């Protein structure tokens, strides 16, 4: 069987869980029906509140794992909980969405049970009768098809956005929901988490912007930021940035697009000197029209772009400003 580990916070389902189920359904096609059925497990105090949403999927069943010690997420507790569910269900594959939470504990879980973990998977295919997993390598410059080594279960994380939640097959009727029998050794939990908080009030809500001009490493220095500002103004767009620009303090953190910043889906997204590392792409690939301007023709940003200009951003940005100001 295939075990999908869904994620919830305070009884709210992380939507990436549905993408993981969609990916698992695709894996079932690639690996053959004998790899099935799919069982979804969700851990934590809010688990029972999201079980209904998960049971709507075309899966064999939903398990909730709740116990003392699972009220707040910690890697130590989650390794204990999911390990017990794996022991009880003997899956061939264990599928996770590639969230920050998964990244925090899934490698420790894999090391604890001494099994393979393949992360950030964007596709599933069949190679020589077995399932192989496609994942980006070298900052997205290359894609690798990889196979797990060793015994099952094989742990797999699916990249956010690689499978679509709305492509998830729904069941004819709701799948059965039952409780997994887990007990947590609270004394073995070494991390003491505090309540999540937001740093600065998000004064800029880029998710509502119709047009965005985003600037990346290609801008080279802080002194060049006004070049991007002028382009944003000419497009009637909000100015945003990839992570390194905000790390350097050239633009405030609240203008960062990507997995650690905001997720946007504007009508127009202009990527100026952004190579397109996956952490950035997950925050903007939902844009309707993407324009990439980059000196490197091989930059991964061109893979998601509708229009591309390969060239020197310091020549092209002013030319665009001049053109836009003509009319």
């Amino acid at each position, binding site marked *: 069987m295939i075990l999908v580990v869904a994620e919830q916070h305070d009884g709210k389902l992380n939507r990436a869980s549905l993408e993981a189920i969609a990916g698992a359904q695709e894996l079932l096609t690639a690996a053959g029906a004998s790899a099935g059925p799919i069982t979804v497990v969700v851990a934590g105090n809010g688990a029972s509140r999201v079980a209904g949403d998960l049971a709507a999927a075309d899966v064999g069943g939903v398990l909730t794992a709740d116990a003392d010690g699972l009220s707040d997420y910690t890697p130590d507790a989650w390794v204990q909980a999911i390990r017990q569910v794996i022991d009880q269900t003997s899956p061939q594959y264990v599928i996770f969405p590639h969230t920050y939470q998964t990244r925090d504990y899934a*490698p420790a879980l894999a090391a604890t049970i001494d099994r393979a973990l393949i992360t950030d998977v964007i596709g599933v295919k069949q190679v020589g009768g077995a399932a192989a997993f496609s994942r980006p390598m*070298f900052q997205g410059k290359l894609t690798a098809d990889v196979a797990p080594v060793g015994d099952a279960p094989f742990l797999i994380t699916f990249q956010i956005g690689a499978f679509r939640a709305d492509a998830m097959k729904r069941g004819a009727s709701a799948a059965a929901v039952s409780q997994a029998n887990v007990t947590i050794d609270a004394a073995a939990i070494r991390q003491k988490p505090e309540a999540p908080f937001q740093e600065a009030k998000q004064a800029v809500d880029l998710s509502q912007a119709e047009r965005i001009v985003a600037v990346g490493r290609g801008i080279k220095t802080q002194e060049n930021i006004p070049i991007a500002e002028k382009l944003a103004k000419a497009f009637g767009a909000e100015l945003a940035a990839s992570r390194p620009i905000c790390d350097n303090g050239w633009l405030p953190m609240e203008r960062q697009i990507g997995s650690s910043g905001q997720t946007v889906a504007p009508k127009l997204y202009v990527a100026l000197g952004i190579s397109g590392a996956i952490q950035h792409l997950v925050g903007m690939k939902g844009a309707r029209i993407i324009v990439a301007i980059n000196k490197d023709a091989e930059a991964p940003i061109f893979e998601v772009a509708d*229009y591309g200009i390969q060239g020197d951003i310091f020549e092209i940005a002013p030319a665009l400003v001049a053109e836009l100001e003509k009319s």
Partner: protein
Amino acid sequence: MKIAVCIKQVPTREWQPRLNADKTWIREQDVSYEMNEPDAYALEESLRLREKHGGEVVVCSAGPTRVQQVIREALARGADRAIHVEDAALGAADAYAAAAALAPAMAEEQFDLILTGLQSDDQGHAQFGPVLATRLNVPHSTIIMEVLVDGQSLRVKRELEGGWFQHIAMPLPALLTIQSGINQLRYATLKGIMAAKKKEIKKVATPGAVASRQKVLALYAPTKSKQTTMIGGSPAEAAKELVKRLREEARVL
């Protein structure tokens, strides 16, 4: 405080990928290398912690002979000494194999705190830190943006998705994976480069055969998810054509 920082040597950002003959790995003779960027932030954080609390910073790296380049660089930036687990097979090894290679030598040292980058810019597994923590049986936390040490306890700021954070406390010894941007990097001074030449790099053999948990079957250029219209010509011509298409074809202006 005895701090370890694990660093990896990765291809430079400017490197244009070329594949080996059987298309399962990159052509290594074409590659120029640098320190993995998140590891550089982990190194900087370890140097700042040493400045505040005293002790030493030990660079730990697993890889072929070539990784001495980034070990020397870390020593030039201020690390005190280094452990190099050397094996040609570690060049293409995964996070599981790298952690297995480093764990015995690092366990012997009994570090108070181990820092490393949240993921590598080459294979990008984002697994090495938690796997090493599990092997060393120390608590861990990932994607850290602030490290506060008070005696034998540790309090960190962990980044969550979408601009959220969380503080987490845990006892020492512990392992943290550091997010890029946690600090401002320092660069090596001439004095640092000279001093690095005299610093110790302890070479250690791998504890057993290097065995990855995943096998690369094929490596290739990514398949496009979209049909990209590339616009050529001079900057002025390209600008004109792009604006025209955005107005008339895409209708987003």
